[in-house]
């Protein structure tokens, strides 16, 4: 076991994959610079050369197509975006092309590309550097979507994504980068379908992904101090969604709060709430509750940004309410993962 942070875990997975498979290469804005996308591509240029680690023009549309074409030519590209907001420019290639290629041609070819996209938050990222586009991608069949939360997830899911013959988009949350965890040996073979029970509990289920799982865990600690046992389920793969684990927890607790890193409307939180209403209805004791970004573009001003995202405090409040209890005077502690600028 090795102890590394999230960014280092991604780096380890990339290095492992590039060592084992010469068809793997890394492309994207800044992958070869001294910042190395928060260190995740550090040293890869020196080790694997300019052919396999290269900067691109700021052309997200065509570069995504280039990745698709390289994959059809036998390569395994990993395309990196320092903010997932830029994916809007790649939607045509991701959703009209990569996601459909295999099916549209009756199985004639597959498109093994991996897209890594970082979700920004805090330090005034504002409206255009804070988005979390998993539901847009997940809506369209033919492409897989993952949201690694821990360093171990980050390593194993990136490897599983690279090994996957299908297009995969991984959303990495900026606030997770400094979180440290234990890593297993790098392993290609892990399945790309997983929801993890991060913490068992009997009173209510909180399904929360990515950085929201971290906040939910903090809330759960606080709730426990007040006698409420929340089970935290983290669906680290959005597509395919591990329904069994999610439904299993809901059936056990009978109560559900869903928290996604994005807006709720037509979001991943809507999907999971709908899933509960369809397949765990008879177990539910209470209305389902969704939390997510407030229905507005993200404001820069810190006091407003604080209100924009759910946090351990608002999650705990929601749980108390669901348990028909009043929130205690003392609020759940707010996490301090907010990073300092400039980016």
């Amino acid at each position, binding site marked *: 076991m090795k102890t590394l942070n999230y960014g280092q875990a991604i780096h380890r997975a990339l290095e492992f994959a590039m060592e084992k498979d010469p068809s793997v*290469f890394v492309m994207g804005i800044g992958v070869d610079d001294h910042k190395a996308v928060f260190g995740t591509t550090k040293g890869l240029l020196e080790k694997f050369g300019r*052919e*396999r680690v290269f900067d*691109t*023009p700021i*052309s997200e*549309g*065509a*570069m*995504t*197509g*280039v*990745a*698709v*074409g*390289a*994959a*059809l*030519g*036998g*390569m395994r*590209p990993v395309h990196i975006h320092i903010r997932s907001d830029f994916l809007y420019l790649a939607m*045509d*290639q991701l959703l*009209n*092309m990569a996601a459909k*290629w*295999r*099916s*549209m*041609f*009756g*199985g*004639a*070819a*597959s498109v093994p590309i991996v897209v890594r996209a970082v979700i920004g938050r805090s330090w005034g990222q504002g409206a255009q550097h804070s988005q979390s586009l998993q539901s847009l991608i997940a809506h369209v*069949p*033919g492409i*897989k979507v993952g949201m690694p939360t821990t360093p171990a997830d980050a390593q194993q899911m990136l490897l599983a994504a690279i*090994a*996957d*013959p*299908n297009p995969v988009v991984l959303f990495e949350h900026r606030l997770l980068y400094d979180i440290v965890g234990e890593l297993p040996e790098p392993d290609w073979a892990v399945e790309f379908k997983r929801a993890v029970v991060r913490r068992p509990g009997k009173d209510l289920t909180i399904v929360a992904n990515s950085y929201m799982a971290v906040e939910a865990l903090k809330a759960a600690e606080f709730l426990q101090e007040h006698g409420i046992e929340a089970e935290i389920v983290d669906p680290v793969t959005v597509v395919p969604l591990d329904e069994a684990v999610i439904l299993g927890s809901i059936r056990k607790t009978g109560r559900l709060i869903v928290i996604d890193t994005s807006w709720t409307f037509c979001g991943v939180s809507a999907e999971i709430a709908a899933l509960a209403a369809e397949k765990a209805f008879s177990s539910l004791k209470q209305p389902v509750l969704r939390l997510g970004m407030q229905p507005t573009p993200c404001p820069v001003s810190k006091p407003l940004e604080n209100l924009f995202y759910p946090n351990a405090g608002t999650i705990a409040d929601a749980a108390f309410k669901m348990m028909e209890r009043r929130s205690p005077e003392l609020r759940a502690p707010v996490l301090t993962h907010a990073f300092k600028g400039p980016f």
Partner: protein
Amino acid sequence: MSAKADRELLGKLYRLMLGIRLAEEKIVELYPTDKIQSPIHLSIGQEAVSAGLALAMGEADRLYGTYRGHGPYIALGGDLKKLFAELYGKDTGCARGKGGSMHLVAPEAGLMGCSAIVASTIPIATGHALASQMRGRRYAVLSLFGDGGVDEGVFFESVNFAVLKNLPIVYVLENNRYAIHSTVPDRHKQTELFRIAEGLGLRGERFDGNDASNVYATAKRAIDAVRAGSVPALLEYTTYRWREHVGSQEDYAAAYRAPGEREEALAHDPLQITRKALIEAGASPVELDGWRSQVLQEVEEAVRFAEQSPSPAPGRLLADVYASR
């Protein structure tokens, strides 16, 4: 080239064009029966481009196309039976009935895929050229698109990347004068489209795209050059769409066409041009008519195959969405 080689070449081109023309005339005949339930974009009138490219391509070269895919599919040597079966939406089609006319594919023949989104295969072809480059540049990739393809930003982004990385790619702009009903000057101040990306460093040339041997010669030179290490190229071939943008009918009377276009088209019929050259090179009309019957027979067989093939079973609906490891 020797006279014999020349005649052989013309013969090959003519046969490929006959294949396209006769298959599509069959499609025109069938379309009103509703057996083909799919938007169709015919290559009639544009056969020389596909034929010339196909013959110019080496064994390992690859091509990406558009929804106007019958021409390239047939010229590259895609299985005619699988084409008709695909048009019929049958399980035996080249895309197993999933793609229809707009999404032809024949990797074994070098046709990697056709897309119904304008310009969308341009970056993909570019990426495939990158793969070629990374793996020793043993083959070239052709990106085939219409005069509408250069309207989209991805065209310029792709070209920029290709020239930056000196990829083994040839961009082929098949200018048939129209994007649906919109002329080139309706959409561009620069009407010499082969020059449209020269600011990015892409050298372009324009050629007559109705003369298959001319297409062949110019394309072969360009493809061989990029395969051997030369910078990317853009070839613009001027040609003309004889039928409506989508569908089987003629629409010479429609407002977007100029008067006299029909006569002009017929005067530049790619098949006649090559046929004439062939006969001048010594081929006998009887021989050529023999080919015609042969192709017609192949087409009939393909239609029969399509008609007799089974539709995809219901279980095929959700197949192919994801590959398993």
